């Protein structure tokens, strides 16, 4: 293992670069812009932030190239190739979201440049989340990110829905954070540490003791540790909105402005999914077997509530929130198998799901819809608003339909391969057969609402004037390349497993000489 001295900050150069330049940006902004609110200032700040993020990506690529690894700040942070790669993806997703947001900011008069800086700070927090190697450091990073997200939720100050959603998100999120801190304190009472590696070692020892049946004599407080770890897991599954902890997500995703929903669903969810996989597989692997029944329950509830809930929804954002709950169910199904194949499958599913989400939200961001006898455009809110889009913009609508088919898991598209890999991983464990059945049924149900949208796009006769008037160059490019990847994934599927294995093996660089 490589331990870095506290004065040798070379391995966390990307994070330091990002945070220092953001502080500089805040000072420059406050001195130059004063109270002069204008769209130009927002654009300028956004361009600078994108440049900074690209710079951070270059530094991270340098880390990746040189296989930089090690611990720093008394083991509070660990840098290794797996998290470095995840960080690069997070920053790329952030840049993509910001590019899509340009037209939205103009249309909705978002004139405060501070939100751009908040976005940068959230990105920095996400980087810290991915490399935190201690549960308390992780807690601080999650809180840093959450504060920014609460601010972003109320980006439209006059919107009642935004205020309601922000308030709900804040209260429930703060409560989940409190539960996490309580769990961490219980773990600390039991083990005297919150460090990932120490906990991993402690759990491994407990497992050995458990197998030799001497546990009861040596340590009678094993339950306290498990209770604490379960409470900490609550925050992680809360952030990805898995089923018993999903209640906030339809309201919040519906209420906040569409561009913020995009950020939540694409960037933040990706980070927390990677974090959950990392915690379950690399840190608390021996705990995974203890908590397996709870995870199975969570998966069943996610799959059923997600797919059945989405059937009843008519509003598009709500529908896709429910559909995302069922997708979380598939990822959990891959994660709880505890096998190498399951790990690879879950990672592939996360990647493809995020890519599909980008396409989805870029499409939704570009839908504006003219009411009959009314010249002011309104954003598409329900499925019936989408009627006629297929006639007005056939090419983009076809790409979007491909994306929906990929979501549903129809064969030639990438979603199918992600799903079948998950099912293959679950098939290896005989006890998971009933769960697999639930997953397949849920997959069938989910076809219903994806096909319902495709029907509204192409196969309903209408005279209403509906077209994608907010479709600009950036969104076109993003949608086109993402869907091209989803379609062409079938040709590269051969060596996918090898690539995924190389990716997650990056974590174990930490413990190699």
């Amino acid at each position, binding site marked *: 293992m490589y331990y870095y001295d506290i004065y040798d900050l070379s391995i966390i150069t990307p994070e330091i670069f990002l945070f220092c330049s953001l502080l500089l940006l805040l000072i420059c902004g*406050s001195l130059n812009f004063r109270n002069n609110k204008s769209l130009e200032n927002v654009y300028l700040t956004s361009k600078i932030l994108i440049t900074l993020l690209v710079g951070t990506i270059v530094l991270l690529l340098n880390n990746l190239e040189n296989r930089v690894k090690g611990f720093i700040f008394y083991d509070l942070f660990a840098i290794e190739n797996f998290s470095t790669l995840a960080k690069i993806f997070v920053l790329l997703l952030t840049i993509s979201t910001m590019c899509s947001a340009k037209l939205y900011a103009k249309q909705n008069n978002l004139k405060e440049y501070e939100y751009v800086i908040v976005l940068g700070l959230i990105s920095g927090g996400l980087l810290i989340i991915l490399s935190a190697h201690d549960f308390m450091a992780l807690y601080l990073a999650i809180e840093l990110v959450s504060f920014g997200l609460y601010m972003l939720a109320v980006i439209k100050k006059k919107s009642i829905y935004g205020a309601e959603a922000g308030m709900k998100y804040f209260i429930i999120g703060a409560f989940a954070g409190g539960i996490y801190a309580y769990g961490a304190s219980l773990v600390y009472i039991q083990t005297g540490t919150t460090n990932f590696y120490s906990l991993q070692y402690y759990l491994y020892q407990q497992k050995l003791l458990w197998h030799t049946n001497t546990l009861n004599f040596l340590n009678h407080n094993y339950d*306290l540790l498990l209770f604490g770890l379960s409470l900490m897991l609550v925050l992680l599954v809360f952030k990805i909105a898995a089923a018993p902890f999903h209640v906030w997500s339809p309201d919040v995703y519906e209420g906040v402005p569409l561009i913020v929903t995009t950020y939540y669903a694409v960037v933040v969810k990706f980070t927390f999914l990677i974090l959950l996989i990392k915690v379950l597989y690399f840190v608390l692997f021996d705990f995974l077997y203890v908590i397996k029944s709870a995870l199975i329950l969570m998966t069943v509830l996610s799959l059923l509530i997600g797919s059945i809930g989405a059937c009843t929804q008519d509003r598009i954002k709500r529908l896709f929130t429910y559909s995302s709950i069922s997708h979380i169910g598939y990822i959990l199904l891959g994660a709880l198998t505890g096998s190498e194949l399951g790990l690879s499958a879950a990672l592939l599913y996360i990647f493809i799901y995020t890519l599909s989400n980008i396409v989805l939200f870029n499409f939704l961001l570009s839908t504006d819809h003219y009411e009959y006898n009314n010249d002011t455009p309104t954003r598409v809110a329900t499925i019936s608003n989408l009627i006629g889009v297929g006639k007005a913009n056939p090419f983009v609508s076809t790409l979007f339909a491909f994306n929906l088919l990929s979501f549903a898991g129809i064969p030639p598209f990438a979603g199918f391969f992600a799903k079948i890999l998950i099912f293959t991983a679950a098939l290896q464990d005989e006890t998971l057969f009933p769960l697999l059945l639930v997953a397949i049924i849920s997959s069938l149900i989910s076809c219903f609402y994806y096909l319902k949208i495709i029907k509204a796009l192409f196969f309903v006769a209408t005279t209403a004037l509906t077209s994608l008037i907010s479709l600009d160059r950036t969104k076109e490019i993003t949608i086109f390349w993402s869907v091209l990847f989803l379609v062409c994934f079938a040709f590269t599927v051969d060596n996918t497993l090898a690539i995924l294995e190389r990716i997650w093996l990056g974590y174990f660089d930490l413990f190699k000489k």
Partner: protein
Amino acid sequence: MFDKEFIPFAIFFIICFILAIILAVLAYSVAPAEEDLEKLSSYECGFDPFEIARIKFDIHFYLIAILFIVFDLEIIFLFPWCAANNISSYENFWSILIFLLVLTIGFVYEWTKGALTWK
């Protein structure tokens, strides 16, 4: 789990509890309760001491109070840092300086934003 090292905390907790109850009871029983002019006049923040809760108020007082809390907490961090500075390392020295730097940047921001000017 609860070793002997937690006993001082328990004693501390019990004493706090008893002390709080005694002080509350004394405040009700011993203190003079006549209303004089000084007691009925408004506070510095412009609020009357006795009035209904549902009134309009200026958010500015609360903004100033929140900003004050931040710098109050800074003092709370600085005080033990000063006290322990002769026994601690350079890391502690620089970490608090970085903290002060970040806080100062926030201060510059709120100053230029006009949160401190009284309109």
